């Protein structure tokens, strides 16, 4: 069994799975339930001056009958008093000394930051997360993403925190910014110990077409909400990798954004995360999902011969490079396995209307492919014109049968040439320009 124990900037937990700061991390009761279920850490729902919430706070993006592929909320930070929150943190830490409890904080003045940092440490928290990310409500009051979107302000406030901090400090980054590494570098300059990302994305999930008011609706109005859930994973992975690859950041990363199972978790680890935070999946299914996350990640690491998650962390970061370094000579084409093709012809219409028109519908008799599974007599079957196929992958992406369409590398004997190489060769007159596609 691979070792899942985690150490993010000195914050230790038995596994990398933390409950993210949000509704599932609102109370001591929930933290107990989370740890009983197997979570490694809890980032407490953000503590600050208590706020007042509206009724009707969440909305979701569904995909057909699949619920909540995206999720949005207009709930603010904790509506409970700091006293209650810090007291419960202390109680939880007493019962779960080897699990991580991180206090998420959001206040305004230097004095308030100093006070809340001290109270977090006094309660026994293992670390502090600075909420510079919430894109709704609090930003209108100069907090949350209003801080995170201005690296100079974020750097200033982080430096106030570091003046008082005796435990590790994580800066949580907002994705609602042009270049997230600017904010990460600001955290680094201010002396933060780690970063976590992404917070939620500004969003409107949908419009009620009867009332014309977007959801969640509050007495005939709505407000921009913070978007999260499985649909944001690609955006989160991109930002996590960008920070992990930036030589001016070099901070441990707690990855957040659409993690719902061990596969998502492994991808975040491979792109440079050390710990992982989960919220929407818990809101959908409850704390019990962590059992499969732990088992699945452990089994995956075993299958790859990795002894601990440290061998996976960052493994994929260097494989992402600038486009200009990619090999223009490398070619692959689509190949269709007629023994598994069920005859839906989705590859044909996708290529014909949506890509490069290099699949033909041909008579199965002429092709000599027989009927295969599910193909009707004489019904034309898709055939890739390999000489015209650009290898774009679209057909293999729409194919509903696993491994029916294989993107196959076609060795062409040419040595690799990137765009950069190409530009150099052109400048030196070593080759002629590649003619435009007809």
């Amino acid at each position: 069994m691979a070792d899942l124990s985690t150490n993010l900037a000195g914050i230790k937990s038995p596994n990398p799975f933390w409950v993210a700061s949000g509704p599932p991390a609102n109370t001591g009761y929930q933290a107990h339930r989370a740890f009983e279920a197997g979570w490694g850490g809890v980032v407490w729902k953000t503590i600050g001056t208590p706020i007042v919430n509206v009724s009707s706070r969440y909305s979701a993006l569904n995909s057909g009958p699949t619920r909540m592929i995206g999720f949005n909320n207009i709930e603010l930070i904790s509506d409970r008093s700091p006293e209650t929150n810090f007291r419960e943190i202390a109680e939880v830490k007493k019962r779960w000394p080897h699990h991580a409890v991180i206090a998420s904080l959001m206040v305004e003045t230097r004095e308030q930051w100093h006070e809340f940092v001290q109270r977090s440490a006094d309660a026994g928290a293992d670390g502090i997360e600075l909420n510079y990310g919430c894109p709704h409500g609090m930003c209108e009051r100069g907090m949350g993403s209003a801080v995170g979107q201005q690296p100079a302000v974020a750097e200033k406030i982080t430096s106030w925190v570091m003046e008082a901090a005796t435990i590790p400090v994580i800066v949580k980054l907002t994705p609602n910014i042009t270049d997230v590494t600017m904010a990460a570098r600001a955290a680094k300059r201010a002396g933060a110990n780690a970063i976590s990302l992404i917070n939620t994305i500004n969003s409107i999930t949908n419009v009620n077409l009867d009332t014309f008011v977007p959801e969640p609706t509050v007495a005939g109005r709505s407000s921009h909400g913070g978007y999260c859930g499985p649909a944001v994973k690609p955006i989160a992975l991109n930002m996590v990798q960008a920070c992990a690859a930036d030589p001016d950041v070099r901070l441990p990363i707690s990855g957040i954004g659409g993690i719902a199972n061990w596969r998502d978790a492994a991808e975040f680890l491979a792109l440079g995360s050390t710990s992982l935070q989960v919220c929407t999946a818990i809101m959908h299914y409850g704390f019990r999902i962590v059992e499969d996350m732990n088992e699945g990640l452990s089994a995956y690491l075993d299958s790859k011969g990795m002894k601990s998650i440290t061998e996976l962390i960052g493994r994929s970061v260097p494989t992402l490079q600038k486009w200009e370094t990619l090999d223009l000579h490398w070619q692959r084409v689509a190949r269709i396995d007629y023994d598994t093709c069920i005859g839906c012809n989705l590859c044909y219409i996708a290529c014909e209307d949506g890509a490069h028109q290099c699949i033909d519908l041909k008579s199965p008799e002429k092709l000599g492919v027989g009927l295969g599974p599910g193909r009707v007599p004489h019904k034309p079957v898709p055939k890739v014109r390999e000489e015209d196929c650009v290898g774009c992958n679209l057909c293999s992406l729409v194919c509903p049968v696993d491994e029916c369409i294989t993107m196959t590398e076609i060795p062409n004997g040419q040595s690799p040439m990137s765009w950069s190489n190409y530009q150099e060769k052109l400048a030196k007159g070593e080759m002629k320009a590649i003619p435009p596609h007809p």
Partner: protein
Amino acid sequence: MPLQPLLPAAALAANMADLHPPLRPQEALVEANRCLYCFDAPCIMACPTGIDVPAFIKKIASGNPIGAAKTILTANILGASCARVCPTSVLCEGACVLDDRDEQPIQIGRLQRYATDYIEQRGLSVLSAPAKKTGKKVAVIGAGPAGLGCAAELARLGHGVTVFEKQPQAGGLNTYGIAYYKLKPEISLAEVALVQSLGVKIRCGVEVGRDLAVARLEQEFAAIFVGIGLGDAQRLRIPGEDLPEVRDALAFIEQLRTEPLDRVPVGRAVAVVGCGNTAIDAATQALRLGADSATIVYRRGEEDMSAYEFEYELAKADGVEFLFHTAPVEVLATDGHVCGLRLSRTVVNAAGKAEQVPNSEFNQAFDLVLMAVGQEKQIALLKQLFPALALDARGAIQRDPLTGQTTMPHVFTGGDCANGGREVVNAVGEGKKAAHGLHAFLTQATARPPIQPSRLGAKTGATGSGLLQPIRAHELEAQVKIPGASPGAFDKTAANSSDHNAIRA
């Protein structure tokens, strides 16, 4: 003793409830979202009316059931009844590619019902006939599925149509001859109203040849569509067949559909002779009416039965008993009423014929015998109405399968009288094909039926017959014989190649 109704109305209503209940909206959404939205889908090819199944399912999935109903009814005017009575497991659902991904095929029939119910229950109309008429008039003989399919399509092409039906109500077997738990008569009658809403005139209670001469039709109408279906039930010609409790199974089913269920008499021990789908319908309904037993008597084995597999399974689940390799030789009676059958064991001989085994006879008690051994062809009637009409060896009307045109250029046909007896959906499809043939005949122009959007890219690809000869636009470009027109006016176009790439080049 004469037969009596056996069950009260409430029990009958429960017994005769829909075999496949309607999908609830959430169920329909989940099911519709399973559809892969195949391009040029096999289910379209398997449908004899060529319904663009993926298109209508996609519309259900998006919350556009009205558009879904329009897609269905545009291709198949009897889409509501076909949703209920089609043998989908051998048609669209049998062709569903999900079957080949080891998943359950999409429940296309139930989704089709969902969409057509949606507009029916709200009284929405989704089809219309053009305001500008061609001035051409067609007489349709028979208001069954073929006649209605033809009439509706002709009306939508702008022609004037009058349908003549000898029964008091239109709809043919959909109104009179389908198991009650599959299709209630009111669904069929609503479809008749839909056809009428397109401007089609339907004159019920008019029997052509008796009340109205064909010559009169030929004076008033430019062309005629013959959709008279099949004739009377075949008889076994055994002693006792004229006893009052020996009935034609179709007449028994008709009684169920035209009288209150609690007034339909049924036996306690019912024998059904024959093993086709009508036999199954009769046996299962006899049980649902309260019979203690229903026994199907068939002179061959189960491997030879013409009933569909799913019908056989339904019958077994309902408790129908089967006497295979058994043939009735006499209907037994006491006091002038049926008391049983004298039966003989049979064996299928080397020539493939079932013959009786000597000295194997035995008696079994029954009080009602339903005959379901097939229907007669309408040879005599057709000879009387159209002496010049050519019939094939089976007694079916010879016609061009693509246009429905018979050996008499102004007479077109489709449905059971032309195909020898097939499904409702075949009849509708053939009626529709014939309407396009008629359109070509009347206007000397090829009808251009709307090509389904999902087929646009494969205009020339599919030359095959699919499973059961679906309609294809390019097939309709086949030549229609027009007296006086120069030959070749309707030659097949060059686009009939099977290789899609041919037109790209």
